[in-house]
């Protein structure tokens, strides 16, 4: 231990004898500890309520209580400190008992300076190492990270990759099944990077009609196309200095892929309808739930763009591979939605916990989120019981990892949960049917349907895309 380490240490002497306390203080003076002294056990406990010593020299025979009781209280309060018992000659049995109770060492009176300083240095070294281990444990076993929740081993690896990759400008390609948190991952990368003060601009390539996509990304000038009444900045310009997140990039048109490639290679682009090159400093993060290599082989994704974007791949694990996270996430949603819906749910029965853990969760976190919301909205109580689960979960087969889809009155597919209650339909289903019937009434014209429904066309495209990719089906009743 070097001098600087020693000087940072705080030592509390609990000793009712002024003579012995001043002697110990003199013994320790050369090492530069910050030494405090109290005379009684109660004073020690009071002092510990407001101070955090690295080590305590604790006399066993205190005027108001036994030193062992002080030690037990220290352990009960989980105070992170090393306790050295100071005992009189002939009290070794008690000292052994103290070691069993959690003391780090003991000294038998009288002792000299060298003995005290060596023993104290040793236990402080142990304390320092214990603290370092705790710091590493906290750093490497986080149960949440930015918007992610979960402390499973696969997620620890993800957190580490994000942390390492975020400061770089290298492109990041996020893959993962739907609902695994690709956008959360992009947000984590952005906020962990030194671009966090600038915008993160997300573009969902599946939600925007391909004819508008180029303008969405690069912007346009007035008159560039019908309806371009004014100059408009695109996402690339908005993201200058920050991060551009291209979600569902496999949906991007091949022509636009080539423009994106040129933009990545040169750092410049042209607004639609303009010849003037614009230069921006952005970091690109992409995501897809498709097999990117298969897309390249099928000719739907440019190979050169693939290699430009696929610099740092992050493969988000599906929920079924995050066993220990399922309940943590479920409890978080239960708490959140109970609060939102003014319900009293506090947790799950052990049986429900087993069912949740055993689920295969094809829709991943989003599916789990929907299940919990469904339960909270449609039920009352403090504990979620098996009968509250959607039948796809509560009945065997439908959601179990080893089982296949079950044929029952109500099933679970993708993030689809269908209620057992015939008179009540989940909001998402009502919404889906309303959207589908409106699009049908508009002869498949999505923008027109969007106008009638008073939502943006991109909202409808996004929802349709999600239903398609997640295999959401309301025809299973």
């Amino acid at each position, binding site marked *: 231990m070097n001098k600087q380490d020693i000087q940072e240490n705080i030592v509390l002497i609990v000793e009712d*004898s*002024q003579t*012995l306390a001043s002697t110990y203080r*003199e013994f320790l*003076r050369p090492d530069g500890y910050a030494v405090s002294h109290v005379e009684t056990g109660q004073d020690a406990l009071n002092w510990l309520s407001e101070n955090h010593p690295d080590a305590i020299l604790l006399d066993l025979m205190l005027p108001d209580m036994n030193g062992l009781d002080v030690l037990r209280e220290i352990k009960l309060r989980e105070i992170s400190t090393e306790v050295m018992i100071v005992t*009189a000659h002939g009290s070794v049995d008690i000292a052994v008992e103290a070691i069993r109770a959690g003391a780090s060492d003991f000294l038998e*009176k009288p002792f000299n*300076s060298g003995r005290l300083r060596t023993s104290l240095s040793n236990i402080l070294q142990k304390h320092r190492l214990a603290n370092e281990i705790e710091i590493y444990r906290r750093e490497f076993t986080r149960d949440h990270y930015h918007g992610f929740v979960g402390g499973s081993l696969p997620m620890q690896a993800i957190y580490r990759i994000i942390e390492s990759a975020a400061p770089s400008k290298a492109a990041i390609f996020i893959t993962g099944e739907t609902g695994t948190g690709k956008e959360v991952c992009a947000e984590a990368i952005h906020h962990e990077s030194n671009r966090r003060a600038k915008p993160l601009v997300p573009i969902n390539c599946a939600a925007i009609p391909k004819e508008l996509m180029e303008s969405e990304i690069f912007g346009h000038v007035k008159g560039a196309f019908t309806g371009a009444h004014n100059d408009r900045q695109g996402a690339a310009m908005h993201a200058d200095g920050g991060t551009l997140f291209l979600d569902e990039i496999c949906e991007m048109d091949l022509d636009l892929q080539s423009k994106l490639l040129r933009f990545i290679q040169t750092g410049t682009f042209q607004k639609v309808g303009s010849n003037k090159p614009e230069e921006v400093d952005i970091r690109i993060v992409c995501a897809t739930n498709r097999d990117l290599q298969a897309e390249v082989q099928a000719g739907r994704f440019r190979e050169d763009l693939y290699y430009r974007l696929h610099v740092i791949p992050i493969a988000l694990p599906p929920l079924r591979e995050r066993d220990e996270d399922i309940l943590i996430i479920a409890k978080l949603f239960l708490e959140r939605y109970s609060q939102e819906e003014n319900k009293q749910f506090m947790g799950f029965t052990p049986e429900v916990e087993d069912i949740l853990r055993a689920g295969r969760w094809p829709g991943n976190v989003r599916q789990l989120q929907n299940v919990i919301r469904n339960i909270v909205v449609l039920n009352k109580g403090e504990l979620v019981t098996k009968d509250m689960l959607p039948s796809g979960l509560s009945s065997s087969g439908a959601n179990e990892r080893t089982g296949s889809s079950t044929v029952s009155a109500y099933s679970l597919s993708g993030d689809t949960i269908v209620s057992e209650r015939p008179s009540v339909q989940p909001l998402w289903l009502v919404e889906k049917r309303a959207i589908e019937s409106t699009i049908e009434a508009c002869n498949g014209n999505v923008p027109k349907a969007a106008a009638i429904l008073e939502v943006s066309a991109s909202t409808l495209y996004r929802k349709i895309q999600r239903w398609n990719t997640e295999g959401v089906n309301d025809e299973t009743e």
Partner: protein
Amino acid sequence: MNNARKHNIGYRHQVFVDLGTLDNLKRDVSAEGLRVMLGVFRQELAERIEKVDGALSDSDEDTLERQSHCLKSIAGQFGALPLQKAADKINELCKRKQYQQAFSAGTGIGELGTGTLLTIDRLIEAMARI
């Protein structure tokens, strides 16, 4: 009787105080540090001896056990070995609940204490002169 010169603390009262112990303490904490510590020790020693005397007079078993324990500890730290031994004997008898024997063993501890205090006084004076 040449311990005083041998240990170079300037006095020769090894009957009540082991000069070798004090010499070691001086090496640990410096002469000035030892002088300050002896002052604290002297004050507490007087208080503890008075409390032991009081407990003996009042036949106060609890106080006798506790004060003899404290007296033993501080006496041992400063090499007041005869006093440490006497206090230890009283304390052990108290712990075994042999209080009558403890009270008997306490006879004379006041005299031993007085001798120790005088020795400490002279040591402090001697160190102040050095």
